[in-house]
C-alpha cells in the first residue's frame, strides 16, 4: 500500500483545520485512484455547521467520535458535508456519498441504526436566579413565558409543543421556527438569557452547548411528559445510521460502541452532554 491519508487531530485551530482540509482534498483525490483502492475508507456525512454535533473544522463531538471509529476500523476518515435539512438521508447515504451518519434517533426508520451510544432528553432551561420548572403540570407553566422549537413539517411537532398543546397552554408560549439567522436552539437560549423568555425547552445537547455561551447563569432540568401524555417521548436514544443493505458495517460499529464505550462517554462528557439518568442536579453553566 502506498500512502495513507493523514489522520486528523482532535482539535485544530482554524488555520490548521484549513490545511487539513487541503490535505483531505488531496487525500480524497488519491483514494479516487483505483491504484489506492486497498486503503479502507470510513465515509461520514455530516453538517458542516451544526455545533455541538459537527463542523467543517471537525470541532463537534460527532467529529471526535467519527475519528475514534476510523481508528478502530483502521480506515481513513472522509467527510461529505451537507446541511442537516429536509432530504439529508436521501441526499447523503441514499446518494452513495457516505456510509454512515452519526447522531440519528435510534427509532429512525429510514436507516439501519446501531445500538445507542447515548441517551439524552429535552430540558427545561431557565435563568439560574429564577429557578427552573420541574414539570409541565406545574401551575407556573401557565404564566411563565415559554419558548419552544417548532419543526415545521406538516403535522410534526417537537415534544414540548405536543405537551403544551395537550395541556392547552398557548397564550404564554412562543414558537421558534427551524429556519432563522442563527440556529433555532441558539435563538431560544439567547432569548432566555436576555430576559425575553422565562423558560426554554430545548434538546439536551444543544441546551448545554448554547447555555455555556451565555453571560447569565442558566439552570436546567429534564423535561418529562405531562400526566396523560406518557406516550410522547422526551428522551431519545441516539445511534449511528447506515444504509439498510449494510448490516456488516452496522455490526462493526456496534462492536466499537461496546468496546470503546468509556471513551465515547468521555467525549460526550467533555461537551457536557446531559445523559438521561445522570442529571440529578440542575446544571449551572458558567
Amino acid at each position, binding site marked *: 500500500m502506498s500512502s495513507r491519508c493523514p489522520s486528523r487531530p482532535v482539535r485544530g485551530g482554524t488555520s490548521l483545520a484549513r490545511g487539513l482540509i487541503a490535505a483531505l482534498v488531496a487525500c480524497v483525490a488519491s483514494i479516487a485512484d483505483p491504484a489506492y483502492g486497498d486503503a479502507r475508507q470510513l465515509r461520514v456525512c455530516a453538517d458542516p455547521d*451544526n455545533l455541538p454535533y459537527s463542523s467543517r473544522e471537525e470541532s463537534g463531538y460527532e467529529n471526535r467520535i467519527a475519528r475514534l471509529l476510523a481508528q478502530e476500523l483502521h480506515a481513513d476518515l472522509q467527510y461529505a458535508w451537507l*446541511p442537516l*435539512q429536509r432530504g439529508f438521508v436521501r441526499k447523503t447515504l*441514499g446518494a452513495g456519498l457516505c456510509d454512515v451518519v452519526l447522531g440519528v434517533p435510534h*427509532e429512525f426508520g429510514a436507516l439501519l441504526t446501531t445500538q445507542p451510544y447515548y441517551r439524552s432528553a429535552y430540558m427545561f432551561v431557565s435563568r439560574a436566579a429564577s429557578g427552573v420548572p420541574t414539570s409541565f403540570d406545574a401551575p407556573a407553566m401557565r404564566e411563565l413565558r415559554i419558548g419552544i422549537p417548532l419543526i415545521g*413539517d406538516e403535522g410534526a411537532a417537537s415534544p414540548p409543543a405536543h405537551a403544551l398543546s395537550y395541556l392547552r397552554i*398557548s397564550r404564554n408560549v412562543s414558537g421558534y*421556527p427551524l429556519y432563522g439567522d442563527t440556529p433555532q436552539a441558539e435563538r431560544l437560549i439567547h432569548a432566555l438569557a436576555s430576559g425575553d423568555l422565562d423558560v426554554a425547552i430545548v434538546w439536551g445537547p444543544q441546551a448545554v452547548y448554547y447555555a455555556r455561551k451565555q453571560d447569565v447563569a442558566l439552570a436546567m432540568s429534564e423535561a418529562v411528559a405531562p400526566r396523560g401524555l406518557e406516550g410522547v417521548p422526551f428522551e431519545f436514544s441516539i445511534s449511528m445510521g447506515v444504509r439498510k443493505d449494510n448490516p456488516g458495517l452496522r455490526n462493526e460499529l456496534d462492536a466499537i460502541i461496546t468496546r470503546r464505550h468509556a471513551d465515547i462517554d468521555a467525549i460526550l462528557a467533555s461537551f457536557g452532554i446531559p445523559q438521561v439518568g445522570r442529571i440529578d442536579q440542575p446544571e449551572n453553566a458558567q
Partner: protein
Amino acid sequence: MISRYDMHLIAAIGLLLLGTILVPIVAAAQTAKPSDWPMAAKDYANSRFSDAAQINAGNVKTLRLAFTFSTGVLRGHEAAPIVADGTMFIVTPYPNVVYALDLGREGAPAKWKFEPKPLAAAQGVACCDFVNRGAVYADGRIYFNTLDNQTIALDAKTGKELWRAQLGDIKRGETMTMAPLVVGNKVFVGNSGGEFGVRGWLTALDATNGKIAWRAFSTGPDSDVLIDGDFKPFYQQDRGKDLGVSTWPPEAWKIGGGTVWGFLSYDPQSNLIFYGTANPGPWNPSQRPGDNKWTSGVFARDADSGKARWFYQMTPHDLHDYDATNENVLIDVTIGGRKRQALVHPDRNGYVYLLDRMTGEVLSAQAFGYITSSKGVDIASGRLQTAPDKEPQVGKVVRDICPAAPGAKDWQPSAYSPRTRWLYIPHQNLCQEAFATQTSYISGTPYVGVDLKMTAGPGGNRGEFTAWDPEAGRKVWSIKEDLPVWSGALATAGDLVFYGTMDGWFKAVDAKTGSPLWQFKTGSGIVGQPISYTGPDGKQYVAVLSGIGGWAGGIVAGDLDPRDSSAGTGWANAIADLRQRTSKGGMLYVFALP
C-alpha cells in the same frame, strides 16, 4: 363572460386615458393580442379560455406534434408557457432558467436563454419540489420569480436583465414559486414556505425598477395587513380591530403562515385584485387557538393602494393543511334572477365557492369532492361547519380524513368556458389517516412526527376531472382518473378541454359531454398548465410542459422511497406506482392540426 369582461377592460382603459400618468403603461401592457397567452391564467379573469376555434371536436383527432423543446431540467414542470410578440417564454423549475423560443421560425428555435443562478441552498428549503408556476409578459417585458425569492424583469426581445429585486430570505424558510401578475405599472408577487413559520405577504413592485410599492401581510396588526376604514368584509367574524393579532396566541401571528403562492386575478372595473392565502403554520392546531386570520381565505384589495376591501375565510383555524390559495375565476352570473359579479373558487376543503366579488358574500358553496372533515358551509354566517371527530390529536389515530392534506384540489388551476358557462376542475380524490407517531430528526433535533398516509377516496380513483356549473352549484360531468390530476386545465372556443395526467397522457375531451376525443403520450408525467395560442402563421397551437414533479410527483422527481409510506408527507403511499409509470424530464410539447 369574457366578452363582457373585455368591454370592462376597454372601458377601464378609456377612463384611464382621460387622466392619469399610468395610461401609457396600462395601454401598452395590453399589447398582447387576444390570440396570445401573456400570463399563466391567460387573462385577468383567470379564465384559461382560448377563443381560437380552429381545433374542434370534429378535427382534434388529427392533432399532431408540431415541435418540442427540452428544458434540460428534471424537476416538476408546473409552469404555463407564455406567448406574446411572436415568442414563447418558458421558465423552468429551479434553477429557473428562462427560454425564449422564436415562433416565427420553423421548429421554434431558441432566441435567447437567461440563467438567474438562484442560490442552490434554496433547494433545501422548498417544501414541495422546486417548482415555478410561470412568467408573465407585459409591455415588452418578462417578469418571473426565482426559488430564492427574487423577482426579475427581462427585456422580452433580448433577454437582457432590467432589474432584480430580493424579496425574501431562504434562511427563514422562505421561497417563491408563484406566477406574478402585472397590472398597470405594478408587478404583484407573493411568497411560499408557511410550513416553516414564514409570514405570508403579497407585494406590489414598481414595474420600472422593482422597488417595493407596498406589501400586505396575511397576519398581524391592521397596519401590516393594509386594513383601514375601506375594509368592509361581509361577515361579522371578519370585522374588528387587529384580528390578525387577536385570533392568535400572542406572537404566533409573526410566524403564522398565510403565504401567497397561488394565482392572482384582477377586475379592471372595480380595480380589485383577488388572491387566496395559505394555511396557518407551523404549529399543530391546538397550539394556535382562534380563527388564525387572515390565513386560508380570499382577499380583495385595491390594486393601486393595496388596501383590503374584503376578506372571506374558507377554513378558519385550519386543521388539515387546507390552503385557500386556489384560483379565483372572475365570472358574471345570474343567481335567483339577479345578476352578480362573482368569483368562483374551488377550494382545497372540497367546496366550490361562488362569492360576490364586490362584497365577499357567499352565494353558494357546494361540495365537488368527497368530504368528511366538515359538514357544509353555513350560508347565513359564512362559516365552515367542521367535524370535531376529524381533529388531529396527539398520540391518537384519526382515520378517514377527507379530503387529504392536498385537499380535494390543490394548486392545479381550473378553466372556465364562457360558451358552456362551466368551470373545468382538475382535482384529486384522496383521504388520509393521521396515525402513530414516528421519530425523526432535523438539524440535530429529534422530534415526533405525525405519520400521514393518503389513500384513494371512495371509488378507488385517485384523480378526477370535473365540469362544474357555478350558477347551479352542481357537477355536470366528470372523468375518473386513476392518478391525481395535477395539471391545469385549458378550455377553447372549439369546445374542447385539455388536461394532462401524471403518467404523461395529454388529453382533449368534449367540453359539453366530457367524451374523450384525443390523447398523446408525452415523455414524462404532466403537472404543467396547458395553453393555446395562434402563431404568426395564423394556425392555432396547443402547448404544455411535460415533466413530473411537484408535491404529488416528488416521489419520482425527488427519488423518494416508496417503501416509506409517509415520504413526501404521505404522497409516496398514495401513488407508490408512479415510479413504474413515468420517469423524470422536462420537455415542451406543442401541437397543431396538419
